[in-house]
């Protein structure tokens, strides 16, 4: 069975959609030379009209994509560094995502914003290591965080085909992952559908992005003490609340592990909704980054702030014993 890497999955999904639909094109920096590897081979195949190399002008490029989308195209905009999404936050949440409503349904803005390397990079310093997906979910922008190569293929494909703006976060912690796949695995994954990676009956661990692998490792490590169900939401907005409710109906206990900051992060929303609406027999817990900065260029300091397997294991055991 062939091994598919995460980045190769993004590349294959993009190539397939560009082949299928001539309205799909890419805007981004260094995309001609495929610095992030997502556009490898695509410039030679599709040319400069469809792999459009841009100057460093993220705000204009983001609105350029919105304008092109309203004129009938399906842009994919690549941002190399997570903080660039903060620079264009207004253009995405206040312009692109509101035009359908502001125009009373006249406008469609089918733009995909691809972040092919989101989250912590060892030693890269304070400004290159964010993973700001919670901000987009907060604003109701469709947001996906695929954990696996097959989901990267399937969710990126669905994002491109969707008629609304969609932000795709590819976590750095997932990029090294390779997966055995058959052609049948490489299919569109509907937005808003979670995946249960491992079934269990004592506690539900909701893990986002690359943290799915940590949750699976902890589930293995604690297998003789506790039965952990690992739920990967895959899409943060719209969230698959039915899948969470189904899992909690079985376990009644919840731990969320999330690479956001604590305040107003995705984990906070998951805990709040579960508490308001779902079956819980013990207080839920979350593991997040603290608020404030990832510290910078000293890896040990950064790692001290990020969700770890040890903290997850300890938290799971506490939740199982409480209530």
């Amino acid at each position, binding site marked *: 069975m062939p091994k598919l890497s995460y980045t190769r999955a993004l590349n294959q999904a993009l190539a397939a959609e560009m082949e299928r639909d001539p309205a799909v094109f890419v805007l981004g920096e260094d995309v001609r030379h495929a610095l992030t590897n997502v556009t490898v081979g695509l410039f030679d195949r599709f040319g400069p009209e469809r792999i459009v190399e841009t100057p460093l002008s993220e705000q204009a490029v983001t609105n350029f994509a919105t304008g092109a989308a309203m*004129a009938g195209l399906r842009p994919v905009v690549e941002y190399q560094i997570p903080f660039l999404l903060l620079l264009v936050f207004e253009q995405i949440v206040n312009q692109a995502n509101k035009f359908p409503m502001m*125009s009373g*349904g006249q*406008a469609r803005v089918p733009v995909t914003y691809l972040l092919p390397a989101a989250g912590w990079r060892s030693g890269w310093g304070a400004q290159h290591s964010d993973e700001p997906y919670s901000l987009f979910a907060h604003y109701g922008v469709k947001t996906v965080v695929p954990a696996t190569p097959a989901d990267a293929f399937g969710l990126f494909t669905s994002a491109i085909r969707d008629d*609304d703006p969609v932000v795709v976060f590819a976590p750095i912690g997932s990029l090294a992952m390779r997966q055995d796949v058959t052609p049948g695995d490489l299919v569109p994954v509907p937005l808003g559908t979670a995946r249960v990676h491992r079934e269990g009956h004592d506690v539900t661990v909701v893990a986002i992005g690359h943290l799915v692998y940590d949750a699976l490792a902890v589930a293995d490590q604690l297998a003789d003490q506790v039965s952990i169900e690992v739920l990967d939401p895959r899409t943060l907005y719209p969230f698959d609340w039915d899948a969470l409710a189904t899992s909690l109906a079985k376990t009644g206990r919840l731990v969320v592990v999330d690479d956001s900051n604590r305040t107003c992060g995705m984990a906070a929303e998951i805990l709040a909704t579960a508490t*308001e609406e779902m079956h819980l027999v013990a207080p839920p817990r979350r593991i997040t980054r603290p608020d404030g900065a990832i510290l910078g260029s000293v890896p040990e300091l950064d790692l001290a702030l990020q969700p770890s397997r040890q903290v997850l294991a300890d938290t799971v055991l506490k939740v199982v014993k409480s209530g």
Partner: protein
Amino acid sequence: MTITARPDGSAPRPEDFYRTMRLIRRFEERAMDLVRSGEIVSGIHPCIGQEAVAAGTGAALRRDDIMLANHRGHGQLLAKGSQPGRLLAEMAGRTTGVARGRGGSFHPSDFSVGVLGSTGSVGHGAPLAAGAAWALARSGSDRVAVSVFGDGAVNQGALLESFNLAALWQVPVVFICENNLYATTLPIGANVAGSVTGRAEAFGIPAESVDGMDPEPVYAAVARGVARARAGHGPTFVEFRTYRFEGHHTFELTTRPRYRDPEEVARWQARDPLALQAGRIPEDLRGQIDAEVEVIVAEAVRYALAGPKPDPADARQYLYASGLQTRPGVAARAEERTV
């Protein structure tokens, strides 16, 4: 009612410009009445005084060309061909409006005449227009796009970035600056270092500065830019020197900030573009047009106020083109859920 580009490329007649300008003037005056009476709750950014720019621009464009308007955009939409009644209904928040009452006075999209809308971030329509124009050109169309913005927009990074993109990629877009000398209350001298046209020239974009109180040179300048764009020669920038006779927004009717010298206002009012254009047509024709416009505006007010307001139950409609429904702000209780 209003005029758009003629197939043979000939210039509109003086009375054509006058008709459009008179419509815009009376439309805005009646809209201000509706602000005072509470029918337009947002207030408006009146374009009274700037009608020549709108009329000249609209006359140089085809109905199927794309426009990104700005917050002072009612005249721009009317000159592009929007139905006065549907535009006024939009401003009054009626479902019969051009954007079903969802855009209001500030963001009235009217795709039926190529107006995609306007942005809250000043100047951010420029990259939207550039992207739309690029998409049109790529599809082989000869349609072009224009972005209209004020002097307050010319220091926005996104706008200047879009000049660079448009020039690099020879995008068929015309950038139109309505320089009315004030960014809200900030006078041009405290707002713009260098010159307005110098910003476009820095990117190699042909730029000119034109009298914006006379529709004929406005038309000629925009038509030159549109011709360049249609011929595949890339972007053009035009600065129109104009003036708004009213406040930035109708909130000035009550707050009455003093940032303009009354003598300056009077000097510009003495150059009223409507009076200028009226002087170019026979008096009986002018009277006839005025009477026609009164009927149209009265009918627009009647149509606007007769339209239904949206049902609050539909407040989350149109949020997503895909039809996604957001969850309400109040969650269902556990016992109400079906799992």
